[in-house]
């Protein structure tokens, strides 16, 4: 009977899409696990390890991520046009990936990782398996949060290395002492400028009342926190003498 036949077909189709989803999910889990490792590596900055070393380690996962996204793309090739059907299964993982890549990019260049650059880093071919723009934007919002924590922890807190305790109150970031990279020393001002610019850029968007808008609202709190740190530093004249050199350093580099 045709009714039974149709439902039989459906059952098979749904079974197929179910097992496809299983495969997607397993890749997603691997992506998540890779981002955990990346996150762990990046947390080492909090322990004052030199940035290049830290980045080196974290970058090690990027090749793996590339591979995993190419796997995803391959799976999606089996069901063309259904990217957004399964989108939910890699969504939040991808947002985390974006936030980490953007954070690393900022550490390296001081600039925002753009959407196209993120796709490139992940080896994505936008014509077949691109990076959803909203996922990208949400990832950027997450990054702003990481940035604040980074600023707070790196700059003034370093509980594990007690041997240098005395120097800590000089309020220079731990790693500055070991290795002066241009652009590293007036961190609060840089972060503040970056987040302010980002905030201005985000305000160009017309958002719906959705998750992205909520995260964007959250970014405002991050911005506030960074301002507080900036003025804490400024007010105590700590940044002042740094600033003069800082600006200089920046000029040199740019």
């Amino acid at each position, binding site marked *: 009977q045709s009714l039974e036949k149709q439902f039989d077909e459906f059952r098979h189709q749904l*079974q197929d899409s179910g097992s496809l989803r299983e495969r997607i999910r397993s890749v997603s889990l691997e992506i998540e696990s890779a981002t955990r490792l990346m996150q762990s590596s990046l947390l080492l900055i909090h322990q004052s390890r030199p940035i290049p070393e830290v980045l080196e380690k974290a970058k090690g996962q990027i090749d793996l991520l590339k591979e995993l996204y190419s796997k995803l793309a391959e799976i999606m090739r089996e069901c063309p*046009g259904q990217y957004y059907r399964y989108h939910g299964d890699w969504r939040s993982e991808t947002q985390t990936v974006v936030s980490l890549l953007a954070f690393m990019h900022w550490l390296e260049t001081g600039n925002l990782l753009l*959407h196209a650059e993120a796709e490139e880093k992940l080896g994505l071919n936008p014509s077949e398996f691109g990076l959803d*723009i909203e996922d990208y934007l949400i990832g950027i919002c997450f990054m702003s949060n990481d940035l604040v924590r980074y600023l707070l922890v790196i700059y003034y807190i370093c509980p594990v290395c007690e041997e240098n305790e005395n120097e800590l109150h000089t309020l220079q970031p731990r790693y500055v002492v070991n290795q002066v990279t241009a652009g590293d020393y007036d961190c609060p001002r840089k972060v503040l400028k970056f987040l302010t610019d980002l905030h201005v850029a985000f305000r160009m968007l*017309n958002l719906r009342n959705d998750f992205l808008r909520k995260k964007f609202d959250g970014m405002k709190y991050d911005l506030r926190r960074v301002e507080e740190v900036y003025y804490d530093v400024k007010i105590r004249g700590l940044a002042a003498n740094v600033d003069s050199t800082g600006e200089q350093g920046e000029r040199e580099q740019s």
Partner: protein
Amino acid sequence: RTLTTNSAASDPNPMKDAFSKYAAYLNDLNDKRERLVKASRDVTMNSKKVIFQVHRISKHNKDEVLEKAEKDLAAVMEQHMSRVVKELQGTDFWKLRRAYTPGVQEYIEAATLCNFCKTGALLNLDEINASLLPLSDPSVEPMQINVLDYLLGLADLTGELMRLAMGRISDGELEFAQKICSFVREIYRELTLIAPKMDDSSDMKSKMDVMLQSVKKIENACFSVHVRGSEYVPFLGSDDTSFSLLGMPEIE
């Protein structure tokens, strides 16, 4: 569409340029979503009218009523479903699904209801999708209704079939009512196997509960007609009026 926010406009600002692009993308997407929602509402409203038309069926006007229903249904397709199809052709079937799924489900409900009344069989998804093809620009990938929306529409269909069965029993068409009963039960049985495999089964789960209620209502009605009807058989003797037992009599 460029925004004149602050500072001089002369210096190149990659972040700003990029965000202009993102803004344009989001604006376009939202506009398209909005157009789809509106088209979907029109599909819903007019499909509901078709369903009401089908409920106007009676023992004597079946062909007439169904003919009009089918004509109206065709109009829904041409005038409103076509707008959905136009918006979606080529892509975004899944991305914007939430914007158009209510309309498509209601259309499925109307189309399958019409078809069942006419042929007693289930209108297949392939047949519906075939009828969508002419509405698309042949150069791009045509929009096709997906299995999930079809099944969700089918789940709602059973509610309408329940109402239809009540009407048919009143009209003396017991056989028709019992056909509906078997049909609904068959759909229910098939869906119990399929429902848990669906992408997001929570919607379907609640619809299955409602469906079971509908099935039970039809079963209860058929049972009581049957029990009552059986009593009369000895009085009436042979099988002449056995199925016109109920419904408005032909006396007048």
